[in-house]
């Protein structure tokens, strides 16, 4: 099958790959590029485990064609920690015991990051809204909500 070249920035690194036309960004990231942090929980846009950030927007990588990502700035959970230091969201998820099996976690963190980038001091309702496209079967959500609220507080204290 015909392959198409695609170039984008992934977690700050320039990345180029040949993909078959029709390949999802999720499969390209996981199977071709080797970033397995986005998870495939449904491949049909209903679980949020594959969430990534494309040009600042939260996107489901299972519903995004890789070939449409030329020139894009893509961020995944694998690239969140800087210099080995966890991002405040990652720290908060650890401290709040907000991961069990962890399969939903990278997607949850992506969704939360887009929220906090835009709304540094979110209300509980804001957090609920931001996470409502992400399924978690283990935690009952409350620890995740608390983790995001804690990360927001930590952020605003750092900024102050």
């Amino acid at each position, binding site marked *: 099958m015909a392959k198409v070249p695609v170039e984008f920035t992934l977690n700050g690194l320039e990345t180029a790959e040949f993909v078959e036309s029709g390949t999802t960004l999720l499969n390209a990231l996981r199977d071709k590029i080797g970033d397995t942090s986005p998870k495939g929980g*449904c491949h049909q846009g209903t679980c949020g485990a594959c969430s990534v950030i494309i040009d600042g927007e939260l996107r489901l990588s299972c519903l995004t064609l890789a070939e449409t990502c030329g020139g894009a700035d893509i961020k995944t959970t694998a690239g969140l920690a800087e210099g080995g230091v966890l991002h405040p969201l990652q720290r908060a998820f650890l401290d709040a015991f907000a991961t069990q099996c962890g399969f939903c976690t990278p997607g949850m963190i992506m969704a939360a990051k887009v929220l906090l980038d835009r709304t540094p001091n979110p209300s509980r309702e804001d957090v609920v809204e931001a996470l409502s496209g992400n399924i978690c079967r283990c935690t009952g959500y*409350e620890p*995740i909500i608390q983790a995001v609220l804690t990360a927001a507080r930590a952020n605003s204290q750092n900024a102050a």
Partner: protein
Amino acid sequence: MAIRRGRGVAAINYPTGMNLGGDPTQALVHSTPTGNFMVTLSSVDLGQGMKQIMAQICAETIGVPTDRVIIDTADTDTGPHCMGTFASRGTHRAGNAVIQAAKEARQVMLEVAAEELEVNASDLETDGQGNIQVKGAPQKSISIFDVALSAHFKRGRSISGRGMFLIPRSYPEKETGAMKPSTCYAHACTVAEVEVDDETGEVTVLTVKNVFEIGRALNPKMVEQQLVGGSWMGISHALYETTEPYYPNRDHGGTDFNQYLMPGPGDLAQTEIIVLERPSADGPFGAKGPGEMCANPQIPAVANAVFDAVGVRIDTLPITPERILRALKAQAAG
């Protein structure tokens, strides 16, 4: 037409293990040359945190901090047999096996330390910080790091141990059903408070107060994870979930997360968890298996609360708005 409130209670117990099939799990423990401890298993972590709990159990038994323990699990080339992670058996069965293996390893460790310190092994104790000291004379001590080095390079000892947990299989007696299906039992009592909209049939769970008795909270934060998530799942079972909404009719089964319903982050009940610990005689440090039972009592508690609110019994799960409305209609028709 009104929003009606009600509350309901349920109390349950839950068996640990599957003795009706034979219930073995084995573990191996050995030290590295610098005094870290490897626990080798073939048990599976489904997300409940089995690896972490086994590390804490090994650490407590050997007398080292948990971060000195490494868990290597679920490679059938290296890990000894485990029946599997189900029937609330993981923590209980694997935990017991790890304790036995760790005790054997600890004994060798103390013997090597005794030779180094020129005392009797029975006079030694661990300080929990990575050192072995003479009971009553803590200034006479040696680090586990040095003990492991000595065992490996000087004394030719293997600081290691084997652990095994097996309950003999129980065969139910044909006529009376006499059997021993499990070991210890966990307990719970839940009170749920709901609001029912008698116009739409919609149920909102306002609060759930769960009291769980789990033998021993081996890691309280992880117990909390499990119980909070379980309580959510119980409510979800009560009100939302099924693959066959018109069972036994096979049609209309949901095939994705849009059709298969579960409460989302905006649908959460205010959840309270209280934990009691009555250590079991046979569990690791008295622990019982809490993983399954924590999702059970909410279901009848919610069902009973719905009745308390609107006076109709929904004896078929899940308790959907449709079922409530039909029952209300039947009730009104007399």
